[in-house]
């Protein structure tokens, strides 16, 4: 269906397909790094991260884990022995340096990887199956270059206790390990399990490093992976008529996007001296530069994750076919929404269904990035035509029936009880003297900027102080409900979220129901370069 002539019609020139023009920070002064390799696009297949297997199972699974090195933490877990929380699956992750091939035309690149891989292995977790993950820091002590051999692992949008949240200050060094407890329980479980609501289920999460001041470097080095959480509705089985029958198995494809620059040795370059936000001149998808993917003429679920550090994307298909968005930040929407362009900020997840059934065998269609972004400030707002090709979908044959569904309703959101709000807080994200601030102050790990009472509800206002910067704001502990954007209703696909993208001058109001755990948590800009330069606050959840 899509011939070379069609491509030209859509404005995709051969030149566009053979690479893309670098657009990145500081490009104008000629000082910015450039990758000296031409990487032919679509000659390698989209890699899929390995699925993580448990090390041990059963009620004594934790006791069976290896204990190499020193235990750095945590001292104690909250709700560890409570019925429904005690781990029945235990995993080990070996965080180490490894070599990774981003493209056949380049030498292998040294990375930091969970189990030595990028992306890290995918966890497939289930509500009702509590797990414990032991993260061994085996990074080299004498590491040279960007990245620091000291880690703390955050499960992004996990409803986890502070000590298992990858709090930035809870970092641990080479030769030590840390246990994160992921109970995979519904929010509110500690008060009255009968009162919990499956409407709170979360599905597409990711885990990444959160080392204080070094998050951008360590994630750029490769410390990121998917954590998929399943429940009775989003059950991961398209043949199960009791569930939503969303595309599953090989048709449920996680895709993590990250842009990078490489040097003449094929090593990733991190621009230390750019505190605005850094952009790469090579797009990587699941760790491959501009891969292809063979697809069958049927429905697929794609879980898009923008792993940054600073780039926003506007995803579109090259022939203009709409994608059906089913989830935002890993939360199923009330109903699917057809979108021609799906914009995504750093750390957001958008799950979409693409139906390839209208294409013929041999057709090729491209996933494009149409967002124009020239520096760390954020997207310019201009939609490029056609944009940059990211992935080439090659339509192959399929001799079975596609039983997957796009249900007309997905997940009704839980009620928002605004009558019980006990506190309102306001946060302005700004820049002064080249320093990133929240309410005029820089991050101090020892300063608690908000004391939140556990099991209460609050409304927070998040405001972008301007200056032409975009800030994707992420809040740990509990996801929030978007109440308003710029005084009006939120966008159609924004309700339950853990990232609020604040474009220049924008303001949102969000509602929280802070439940279950206590301890320190953070809110920060997820342009991780801003985060590392102090655009973060600590808030403590207290009795």
């Amino acid at each position, binding site marked *: 269906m899509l011939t070379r002539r069609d491509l030209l019609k859509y404005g995709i020139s051969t030149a566009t397909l053979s690479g893309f023009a670098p657009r990145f920070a*500081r490009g104008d002064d000629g000082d910015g790094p450039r990758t000296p390799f031409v990487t032919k696009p679509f000659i390698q297949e989209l890699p899929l991260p390995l699925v993580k297997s448990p090390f041990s199972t059963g009620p004594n699974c934790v006791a069976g884990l290896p204990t190499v090195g020193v235990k750095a933490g945590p001292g104690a877990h909250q709700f560890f022995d409570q019925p429904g929380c005690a781990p029945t699956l235990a995993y080990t992750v070996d965080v180490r340096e490894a070599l990774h091939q981003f493209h056949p035309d380049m030498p292998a690149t040294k990375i930091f990887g969970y189990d030595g891989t990028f992306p890290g292995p995918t966890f497939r977790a289930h509500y009702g199956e509590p797990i414990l993950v032991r993260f061994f820091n085996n990074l080299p002590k004498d590491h*040279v270059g*960007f990245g620091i051999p000291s880690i703390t692992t955050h499960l992004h949008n996990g409803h986890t206790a502070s000590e298992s949240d990858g709090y930035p200050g809870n970092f641990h060094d080479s030769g030590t390990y840390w246990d994160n407890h992921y109970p995979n329980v519904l929010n509110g479980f500690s008060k009255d399990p009968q009162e919990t609501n499956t409407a709170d289920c979360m599905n597409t999460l990711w885990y990444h490093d959160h080392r204080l001041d070094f998050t951008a470097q360590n994630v750029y080095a490769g410390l990121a992976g998917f954590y998929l959480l399943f429940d009775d509705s989003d059950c991961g089985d398209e043949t199960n008529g009791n569930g939503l029958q969303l595309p599953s198995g090989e048709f449920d494809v996680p895709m993590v996007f990250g842009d990078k620059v490489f040097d003449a040795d094929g090593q990733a370059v991190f621009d*230390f001296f750019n505190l605005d936000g850094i952009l790469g001149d090579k797009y990587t998808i699941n760790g491959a530069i501009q891969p292809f993917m063979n697809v069958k003429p049927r429905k697929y679920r794609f879980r898009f994750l923008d792993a940054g550090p600073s780039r926003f994307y506007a995803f579109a298909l090259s022939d203009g076919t709409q994608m059906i968005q089913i989830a935002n930040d890993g939360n199923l929407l009330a109903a699917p929404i057809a979108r021609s362009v799906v914009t995504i900020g750093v750390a957001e997840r958008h799950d979409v269904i693409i139906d390839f059934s209208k294409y013929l065998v041999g057709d090729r269609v491209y996933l494009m990035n149409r967002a124009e972004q020239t520096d760390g400030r954020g997207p310019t707002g201009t939609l490029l035509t056609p944009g940059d090709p990211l992935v080439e979908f090659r339509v192959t044959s399929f001799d079975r029936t596609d039983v997957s569904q796009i249900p007309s309703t997905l997940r009704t959101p839980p009620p928002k009880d605004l009558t019980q709000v006990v506190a309102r807080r306001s946060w302005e994200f700004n820049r002064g*003297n080249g320093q990133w601030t929240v309410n005029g102050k820089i991050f*101090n790990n020892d300063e608690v900027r908000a004391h939140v009472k556990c099991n209460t509800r609050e409304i927070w206002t998040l405001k972008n102080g301007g*200056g*032409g910067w975009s800030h994707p704001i992420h809040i740990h502990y509990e996801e929030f409900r978007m109440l308003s954007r710029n005084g009006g209703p939120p966008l159609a696909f924004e309700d339950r979220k853990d990232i609020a993208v604040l474009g220049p001058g924008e303001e949102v109001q969000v509602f929280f129901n802070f439940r279950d755990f206590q301890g320190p948590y953070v809110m920060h800009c997820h342009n991780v370069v801003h985060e*590392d330069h102090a655009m973060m606050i600590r808030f403590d959840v207290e009795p």
Partner: protein
Amino acid sequence: MITRRALMASLAAAPLAASHAAAEPPPASTGGRRHFPNPTLLTQDNERVAFYDDLMKSKIVLVNFFYVECTGICPAATANLVKVQELLGERVGRDIFMYSITLKPLEDRPPQLKMYQEMHGIKPGWTLLTGQAEDCELLRRRLGFADIDPVVDRDVGNHIGVVLIGNERLDSWAACPAQTEPKQIVRTVSWMDR
């Protein structure tokens, strides 16, 4: 959380001795020369120094930009860094080096820098630097002290108040707002001290 006591203990226990930087030649993969130009600068004592070869190579460093007559962020930032120097103690000048490069090299000549040094109680091991205007400007841009917005960048009274912290031997770099609590800046230095 890291207490002050733990912080001090971690610094005291740090493996880095005086011989550390001198004994080990930088590995070939060190990106220093890639990052840093090597112009000749002048110190407050009117000594000529090569930026990369003399000031950065194989050292743990803290670098910021300032100017003598600044009434904006500099007085507070300098006072803060004086406390950092006190906390780091005798290591400053031995294996940790602090540098402040002027944003107004035409006005801030060695005598003005000397006066600033004495006025603020800046001790040896923390060097104030001036030089040719184009060299200072090159360093300012290369080290990330230029604002991306040209209008903001031209307003020198509102200049970037960040301190760059790094270990050149390990090619490891971070940056803190210069007004970060002194003990937190010291802690960042300790992370570079591997």
